[in-house]
């Protein structure tokens, strides 16, 4: 079959055309970066399933800061969906764990972003979101996957991991926010990236 001969491809106007706004492009670009980080992170070995740096959340924080909460929701949920398709966990337990974590941290961010900006920065949002993320996951694990009180023994490990990774991710996000306020990319960062 000759695909190029199909009329809708030769003449795009005859088929349904989706108009992507500038915001859609922003969302797609940011979700793609977050997706790349999720896939990268999936290759890092973890001592305990569930203890992950959550690098993609850096993107969520930056998007929240620059474009607002609605866009952050889009980017985060698109990342969860596309990430599960790429890693082959769509509709598997891992997908629902990611989803519940993402939903809980987005709900927390919806509240925490109203904290006074003078006192609370990206680190606060990142730590709170990390705790909410792990709380949402633990809820799904307990209610659905392992309904046994024994998983409580793992809570402190997850909490400490959330604190550490939340802080680090928040610092990285804060750094990017500073950079974008002053200049798109300072020379020192260009060198480091290149």
């Amino acid at each position, binding site marked *: 079959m000759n695909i190029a001969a199909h009329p809708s491809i030769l003449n795009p106007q005859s088929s349904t055309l989706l108009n992507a706004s500038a915001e859609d492009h922003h969302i797609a670009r940011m979700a793609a970066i977050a997706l790349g980080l999720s896939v990268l992170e999936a290759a890092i070995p973890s001592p305990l399933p569930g203890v992950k740096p959550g690098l993609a959340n850096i993107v969520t924080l930056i998007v929240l800061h620059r474009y607002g909460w609605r866009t952050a929701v889009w980017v985060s949920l698109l990342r969860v969906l596309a990430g599960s398709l790429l890693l082959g966990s769509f509709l598997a337990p891992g997908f629902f764990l990611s989803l519940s974590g993402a939903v809980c941290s987005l709900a927390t961010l919806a509240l925490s972003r109203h*904290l*006074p900006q*003078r*006192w*609370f*920065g*990206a*680190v*606060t949002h990142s*730590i*709170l979101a990390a*705790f909410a993320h792990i709380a949402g996951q633990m809820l799904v694990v307990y209610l659905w996957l392992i309904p046994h*009180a024994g998983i*409580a*023994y793992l*809570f*402190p490990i997850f*909490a*400490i991991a*959330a*604190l550490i990774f*939340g*802080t680090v991710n*928040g*610092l990285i996000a*804060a*750094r990017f926010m*500073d950079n974008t306020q002053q200049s798109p990319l300072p020379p020192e960062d260009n060198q480091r990236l290149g």
Partner: protein
Amino acid sequence: MHSTLHAIKPGDWLVLLLGAFFSAWLAASVWHGGAADHAIIRSGGKIFREVTLSRDALIEVPGPLGLSRIAIHNAQARIASDPSPRQYCVRQGWLKQAGEIAVCLPNQVSVELSGSSKRYDSLSY
């Protein structure tokens, strides 16, 4: 490095501190099972014996595969020997705190440490 620390605002330090306290509290409340004073030995799902940890003892528990020996010493308990092929429960070693449990699955024998104040397994309203 200085600019990195500069990105942390006063409220961030507060949240960081509260998060650390919360994690420490969680660890203290979850991992500290409390002192154990007796051991519950089960065989085939039924309670075989409840023994105090204050006296040293060697208890033989019959199971489908043979005898499991449970040793109690110094207010600690362990499975000393078991006919199970993989020996997981024996290698688990000494149980010290309330709530700790060693299970020998093929022989259906388990020993669980329990304290005087039994914590709730579940609550319903």
